[in-house]
């Protein structure tokens, strides 16, 4: 039985973001600082009280610069999580551990980038140096053959899902339709007021077969920050505490970075299974206790095996689970009520945690009734992380 002492004893006390755009017009560092300031304002906490920062290894804004600009006098904890989009819930876990152990009092988790107007991930991974590191050398197995982008890596799994489970492109499309429906009523979303139909999805051009354009998330400029502290301290701040009921990371056998093509099976996400096991063991909850979820959706296909890994349905059954509006507002499990990364913004999953917080607070623009517990997941195909958030 997993027992995480920080689970249930820590909370997210503040959330803050910049606007989400395609051209922020300012530096990535400024976006990070603005997001952190917004999270502190939301919580009603003075910057000098913060003494911990947690972010991604991919983050370009170093802790010292964020600290200087925020006016934080000293840090006793700073931590970074590796593996891109797998990190967001992991930053909250590290922050929760730090505050629960007394290593820090208040930890800001942040992620900010000009991913659209600056360096675009979708442009792909190209030349790698000779004498490469072990991490760089991994690209030798895919790049020379034209498998260069996250979309292309996911497509290889999607073909197998279609082959083994009879999943169709329309099934992937249902995820996009749900996300865009939710984004359509979220003023902060890039695709505010722009829902799509399944026909739109099917008619959108191929990016990497079998993925259409509308299976792929956006590229975004923006920043998102979260303030983590102990539940006890959180009670003294402006907002009702949102309890970290479970937080975990997961990496599984024969793991590769979005290219775990060499495992026996390609239709599951065992690293997400490692997270799921810890979620349910730590919180004592199960899939039936979750009213809404933020399921990582950089590309639609991986939403399906996540639902299976967390036990919302059986293996191969996600394609049936998501039909009939089950994942839209009013359905069995509304997903990504902010619009997800397909509809709101691609902030490497950090904006999804903020939506989980809003659902617990009861302040989402697409509020689900009677929310006690929200599941939030991080990047798929990569070593990853997850959270269960709830009310005190």
């Amino acid at each position, binding site marked *: 039985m997993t027992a995480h002492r920080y689970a249930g004893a820590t909370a997210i006390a503040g959330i803050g973001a910049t606007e989400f755009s395609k051209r922020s017009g300012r530096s990535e560092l400024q976006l990070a600082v603005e997001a952190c300031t917004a999270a502190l304002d939301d919580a009603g906490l003075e910057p000098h009280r913060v003494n911990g920062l947690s972010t991604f290894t991919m983050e370009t804004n170093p802790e010292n610069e964020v600290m200087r600009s925020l006016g934080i006098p000293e840090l006793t904890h700073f931590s970074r999580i590796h593996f891109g989009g797998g990190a967001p819930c992991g930053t909250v876990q590290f922050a929760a551990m730090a505050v629960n152990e007394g290593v820090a009092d208040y930890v800001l988790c942040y992620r900010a980038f000009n991913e659209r107007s600056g360096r675009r991930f979708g442009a792909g991974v190209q030349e790698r*140096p000779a004498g490469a*590191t072990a991490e760089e050398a991994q690209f030798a197995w895919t790049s020379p053959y034209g498998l260069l982008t996250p979309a292309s890596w996911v497509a290889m799994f999607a073909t197998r899902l279609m082959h083994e489970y009879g999943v169709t492109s329309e099934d992937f499309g249902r995820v996009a339709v749900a996300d865009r429906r939710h984004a359509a009523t979220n003023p902060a979303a890039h695709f505010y007021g722009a829902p799509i139909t399944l026909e739109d999805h099917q008619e959108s051009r191929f990016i*990497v077969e079998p993925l259409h354009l509308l299976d792929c998330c956006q590229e975004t400029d923006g920043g998102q920050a979260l303030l983590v502290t102990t539940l006890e301290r959180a009670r003294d701040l402006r907002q009702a505490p949102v309890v970290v009921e479970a937080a975990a990371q997961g990496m599984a056998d024969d793991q590769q970075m979005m290219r775990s093509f060499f495992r026996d099976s390609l239709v599951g996400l065992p690293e997400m299974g490692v997270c799921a096991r810890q979620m349910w063991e730590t919180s004592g909850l199960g899939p039936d206790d979750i009213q809404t979820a933020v399921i990582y959706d950089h590309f639609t296909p991986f939403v399906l095996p996540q639902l299976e890994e967390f036990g919302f349905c059986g293996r191969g059954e996600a394609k049936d689970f998501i039909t009939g509006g089950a994942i839209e507002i009013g359905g069995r499990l509304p997903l990504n009520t902010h619009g997800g990364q397909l509809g709101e913004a691609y902030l490497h999953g950090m904006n999804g945690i903020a939506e989980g917080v809003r659902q617990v607070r009861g302040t989402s623009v697409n509020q689900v009734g009677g929310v006690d517990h929200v599941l939030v997941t991080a990047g798929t195909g990569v070593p990853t992380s997850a959270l269960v958030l709830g009310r005190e």
Partner: protein
Amino acid sequence: MTTTGSETGAPITDRVRELVGRSSPFNTARDAVNEAMIRHWCDIIDDANPVYTDASTASASVFGGIVAPPAMLDVWDKPGLHLTRDPSNPQSAALNLLDAAGFTSTVAVNSELEFARYLRPGEWLHSTLTLEEVSDEKQTGLGTGHFVTSRLSYSVGDELVGTVLFRVLKFRPGTGRARSAAEKPGPDPDPALRPRPAINRDNQYFWDGARAHELRIQRCNECGEQYFPPMPRCRRCGSLSMGYRVASGRGSLYSFAVPHYPQVNGFRYPVLVGLVELEEGTRLVSNVVGCRREHLRVGMPLELCWLDSHPASADGAVDSRGAISLPQFRPARAARHTETRRADAVAPGDELPLCPIPLTTTLIAGGALATLDYFDAHHDRDMAQQRGSKDVFMNIHTTLGLCERYVSDWAGPEAWWRALRVRLGAPNYPGDTMTMTGSVTAVDQGSGEATIVFRGTNGLGDHVSGTAELTLPASERSIGAAR
């Protein structure tokens, strides 16, 4: 629409059409149907059906002895090297008239063979040709011209053994429609522009092997466990002594992805990327070559080939990173079906296995000569280029043979051919691959008659499409009865 002939003033179409309905005198083949030519043909077509070459198998078969491949029907009477147009032959006369009127280029477009019975060694074949039709002048992709249709009747003694409908296009060179940008394949992208693999001590063995065209799978020198991607320590036995084995190159397609965007240098889009499961058990990512997107199927058999992608020198200087070769996979030819399929085991919609045919100069030149076709553009590159072709190109009789082999390899050795009809399109040039696909469109369970449609595509498009009509044994009993 007709064109006025330059000399007589009479419309050329009318003058050629005066020949329609006329027949040539009977022509007797120079040699009897013979096993030497059959063997030569089977070698180049790579047709291993034993009823053509193996006397004991053939005599135990439904044919009761060696028979000639049906696709050779209109080979036997060909004149060979000394081809002349005999003016008493109305087709030759028509072609001469069209040449004189400026329609100097000739391309075969249709051939429809109908077989009354199989030919056997020792039989002397007689043929006569009737000019059946000359079309109005038409604008085709190749140019403006006339389709000239002839029918050849073949007999042994007084017995009609088969007919061939043969259609050529005579067109004016240089009057073709310009191909649209979308149709033009464009120059092959330079593979040296592809991202180079990042090589370090952990994966050096693989890229050293690739340079020698060896596909290496890491293997523990102590316990034999094999790994991909490689690792420095055997997780099974703990050994740090890691070696490799060389893969056979046979595998199957486990999954695939087809990138369209973004487009980077060094690739032709969309790119066919396969996740290949080797028969040794490990997988690797590679490209699927020699076929098109619509041919990809999870599970299809594949075989290894190599792309020497990055030369050892770049921009005239030696690249310190060395030459790179990339493993690639092409569809593997399915094994020949040695049992003849029964009609009740076949249904409309059944797909024939995809079959890649590497187009070598040997196949093209050898195929032309094995079918007694000495037209220079089929075997002489210099002459082909003088005639405005980029290289030698395959003759229609080789194509017919390859189509017959493709269908027979699926149907089995005792399938009884009734007809083989083809339409030709883009030429087959050396260095390309023609990929055959096909499917069953009709089966009559009573008679065992089955119709198969097939298609051969190369890098330029469809080279051939056609239908095969053959009779399959209706049941176990009927094979015995026929014997």
